[in-house]
């Protein structure tokens, strides 16, 4: 698999007299995967996002995006063009006075010709299904719609990676679904690489790979099923296991052995069925 981002031994703090927010973090992001970075509030996961597109620079170690090192001043803009971030607050990242203006913002920054911009805009609003709202003002949009506009603004630049930095945490369930569905579709149809930073393990359960952060360090990494085996560890750092796993854990404490971990209720009920047949 092609490695798009390499983080090597990165440490970071905001001020010299403050403790480190990230400590010796190393990880890789591969092309076309959905990587979830989980941790509770204050675990350093959002800071990591800022390092991944050069909004912050490592104190130690290196961040490489498709070969560009964020330490080189020249590379920064190449990195930002390749890595887009959807931030948490839908309002505070909407720059334009209308949907069209906002989607155009990144394109304008890159100095693109107007004709091409118009093409890119209609193409990307279509992908996030906001094509009917081009002239709408931001205060008339729902949170989920604003986040979809933010996604459109990013994919219009044709990046290789989109980071969702707790992008759904301020949305209602409907908005959350909207945004995640939009991103899944982009991943499947366009082969977009997605890094989703979240404290929602339900959402993370859908990822291809999981990185667990706590107190500025990467404490675990692997397939969701593998990571979820360490339920105690996840609960200790303040994360909630998905419901089917919680049930399974409680049952295994009562002496029932499952052949495998299940991430969905359907699978769980099937497992219970086989278990019942066995006894």
């Amino acid at each position, binding site marked *: 698999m092609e490695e798009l981002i390499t983080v090597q031994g990165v440490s970071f703090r905001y001020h010299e007299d403050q403790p480190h927010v990230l400590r010796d973090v190393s990880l890789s992001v591969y092309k076309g995967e959905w990587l979830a970075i989980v941790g509770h509030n204050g675990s350093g996961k959002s800071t990591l996002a800022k390092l991944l597109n050069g909004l912050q620079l490592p104190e130690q170690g290196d961040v490489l995006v498709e070969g560009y090192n964020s330490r080189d001043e020249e590379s920064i803009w190449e990195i930002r063009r390749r890595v887009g971030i959807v931030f948490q607050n839908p309002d505070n990242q909407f720059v334009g006075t209308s949907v069209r203006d906002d989607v155009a913002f990144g394109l304008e920054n890159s100095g693109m010709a107007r004709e091409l911009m118009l093409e890119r805009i209609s193409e990307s609003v279509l992908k996030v299904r906001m094509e009917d709202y081009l002239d709408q003002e931001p205060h008339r949009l729902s949170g989920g719609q604003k986040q979809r506009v933010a996604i459109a603004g990013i994919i219009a630049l044709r990046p290789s990676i989109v980071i969702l930095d707790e992008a759904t945490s301020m949305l209602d369930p409907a908005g959350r679904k909207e945004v995640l569905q939009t991103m899944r579709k982009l991943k499947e149809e366009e082969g977009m690489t997605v890094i989703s930073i979240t404290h929602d393990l339900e959402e993370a359960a859908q990822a291809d790979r999981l990185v667990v952060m706590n107190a500025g360090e990467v404490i675990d990494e692997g397939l969701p099923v593998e990571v979820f085996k360490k339920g105690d560890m996840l609960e200790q750092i*303040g994360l909630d296991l998905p419901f089917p796993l919680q049930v399974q854990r409680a049952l295994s404490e009562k002496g029932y052995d499952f052949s495998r971990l299940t991430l969905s209720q359907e699978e769980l009920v099937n497992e219970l069925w086989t278990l019942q047949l066995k006894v």
Partner: protein
Amino acid sequence: MDITIKGLEHSYSKGTPFERKALSNINLSIPSGTFQTIIGHTGSGKSTLIQHLNGLLKPTQGSIQIGDFKIQAGVKEKRLKALRKHVGIVFQYPEHQLFEETIEKDILFGPLNFGVPEEEAKKRAARLIQQVGLDESYLSRSPFDLSGGQMRRVAIAGVLAMKPSILILDEPTAGLDPRGRREIMDLFYRLHEEEGLTTILVTHSMEDAARFSDDILIMEKGGIALQGGPETIFSNPEALKKLSLDVPETVQFIHRLEERFTKNLPHSVFTLEAAVDAALSILQKGEENS
């Protein structure tokens, strides 16, 4: 204090071209001491409804009776401030209302406005800061040096310090991580039980609704779509699906078990423990049969 709402209607920008009806013909009664949950999509009128309960919004039609306070369309209630003393609201993202230099002063803001003597108010602040999970040394610190989650706790203490008998919670855990969410909801439930509060919770979380409520109100398009106890509401997943609302995981689980094992299981299963017990009962029955 009992709450009785009769024929409540609210229109925003009444009498202008932008007039928009947000609530229509709401009839509702919430007996004192109830844990009432209100569920509905964004824009269903939940927030508009709860803001009527302490006079932040005035009805355009109908009336609201809270204890011996009466808010009526077209009639000016002169005792709004007295009413607000009894009805506390924790708004969404309450940390946005913090403004004082110290946490103590911020917690005192409400009580002092309502004429609580300073000594008494300070005692309350000292007790509340611990109740919300911070220690007393925080009182002299600035609220703006805290983390988001801690700011939320301080803001909540500021509302509780008014000692309301009706506590309204508008999505009080939005944006918190799972542990923070659980701690805050447990705090509210404990207060509800210990102080005999009437609690009105607006939430998107079906899990919380199922766990804590005596009564659930589901709103849609400015009206009441469904109402009843958790058992009644969640025993009908089809009705919820029609409103594009989710069913709590525990309830889904029970329904799936019933379907797969063709067995009848108790329906008031709203906690993990109860769900596990249900699964156990099935597995153990299997053992008995064999």
